[in-house]
């Protein structure tokens, strides 16, 4: 599949194609009889913003969950920054890697979830400092400073001492973004991060993500139902359906000139129903 969609990559000065930060090769995932992903090949360049759109159940969320090691692929390999994520090579053969190996490789990936998943028993500040202090071993004072800076960036510095239950959905999601950012991942996954929000709160979250995207250095995989957002932010858009990447390309081309009939019908259905701001399912 097309691996050379670098037209809008954030760093045009990096001469030829840089080696990808994420590489899916023949990745499959099934649950019993149900095949959710059927042989996915996908490269993401460092700093590249890739949006994934597609109907519910098309496998787009699974794509992200396999990379975050929340679920194990049934077949194929995933590489992160040149290293296998789920496998290890032993005497020229691929074997399943242990948790220690995954722990190391997974440090380059971050994720923001649909349902925020903030830690309810910790203050906002502790939500953001806990992992840097205990996983990255950042000195507590430094971790707090960075957390406050990050909370300020997402507009929630004044909520540092609140608990998640005292925040709105949009605020929770912005905290979740700050919490993921302080881990400095090379790739950040956004899994339908606005789907659980009231419509009036979607904008504030998307704005934060746009700002982060503009900074450029971090690659992003955005699983989304927000077409305008995908179009604005992404360097490249993938359309998944039935467990395959059916079509991909730069956002303008993909949205203006969808080639496959399935994408055409998906987009037209979406446009018809988009006045409600809902997802196309």
């Amino acid at each position: 599949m097309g691996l050379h969609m670098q037209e809008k990559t954030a760093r045009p000065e990096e001469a030829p194609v840089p080696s990808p930060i994420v590489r899916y090769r023949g990745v499959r995932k099934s649950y019993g009889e149900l095949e959710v992903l059927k042989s996915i090949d996908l490269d993401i360049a460092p700093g590249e913003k890739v949006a994934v759109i597609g109907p519910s159940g098309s496998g787009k969320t699974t794509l992200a969950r396999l990379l975050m090691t929340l679920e194990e692929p049934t077949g194929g390999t995933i590489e992160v920054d040149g290293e296998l994520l789920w496998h290890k090579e032993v005497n020229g053969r691929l074997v399943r890697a242990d948790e220690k190996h995954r722990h190391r490789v997974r440090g380059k990936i971050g994720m923001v979830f649909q349902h925020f998943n903030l830690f309810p028993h910790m203050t906002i500040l502790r939500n953001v400092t806990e992992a840097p202090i205990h996983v990255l071993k950042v000195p507590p004072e430094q971790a707090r400073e960075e957390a406050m800076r990050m909370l300020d960036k997402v507009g929630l510095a004044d909520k540092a001492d609140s608990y998640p239950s005292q925040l709105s959905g949009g605020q929770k999601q912005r905290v979740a973004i700050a919490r993921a950012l302080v881990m400095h991942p090379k790739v950040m996954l956004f899994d339908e991060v606005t789907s659980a929000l009231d419509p009036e709160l979607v904008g504030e979250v998307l704005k934060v993500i746009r700002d982060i995207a503009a900074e450029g250095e971090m690659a992003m995989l955005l699983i989304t139902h927000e077409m305008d957002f995908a179009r604005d932010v992404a360097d490249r858009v993938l359309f998944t359906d039935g467990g395959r990447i059916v079509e991909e390309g730069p956002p303008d081309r993909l949205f203006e000139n969808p080639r496959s009939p399935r994408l055409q019908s998906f987009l037209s259905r979406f446009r018809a129903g988009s006045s409600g701001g809902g997802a196309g399912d």
Partner: protein
Amino acid sequence: MLWSWDYTLKILPGLLRALPITIAATLAGFAVAAVLGLPLAMLRRSKYKTVSLATRWAVDFIRSTPLLVQLFFIFYALPLYGISLSPFACGVIGLGVHYSTYLSEVYRAGIEAVERGQWEAAVALNFTRAQTWFRVILPQAIPPAIPVMGNYLIAMFKETPLLSAITLVELLQVAKTLGSQSFRYMEPFTLVGLLFLALSYPSSLLIRKAEKRLNRRQSTRR
């Protein structure tokens, strides 16, 4: 047989003297149960099938055999293998191990009530397995379990008379001795009942209060 107040007053100090050992056995037993119950609950969630199955089997086995039999086993059978402990130690171990299986189920319910998203967030932040347990899951799983654990504490307290069977001089044992000396059983056993009531009823009220406070706190936090 008529109730004799004279006799009642005469035996009361002796019974009260047995109370501390009863309470001590309860608290020590509960501490063992609370400490042992947690790893049992965690092991049941092990990703290694043999570990989780073995744990489950052990828990079911201990829960399905009578405490009294276990006490006899520890007190009378273990010495044959060179392990000979005081009645108090046997009682604490017996109560503790037996109740650890109940408490492990209480912990387990608390652990299972923690949303899957919390585990996933812990993976995404790259916590180790141990950090996930102790920083993310257990702080959420244990507080709601505390009132239920309190109920088990009271239940356990009421089971301490079983320890008289392994010669521990607790309340019932003292009452039995008193009775056999004077052939008056009414007063000692009534007093034993009242002493248990006097301790367990206020405790249960306390637990109910703690439960209410906890529910309030949880509803503001979630």
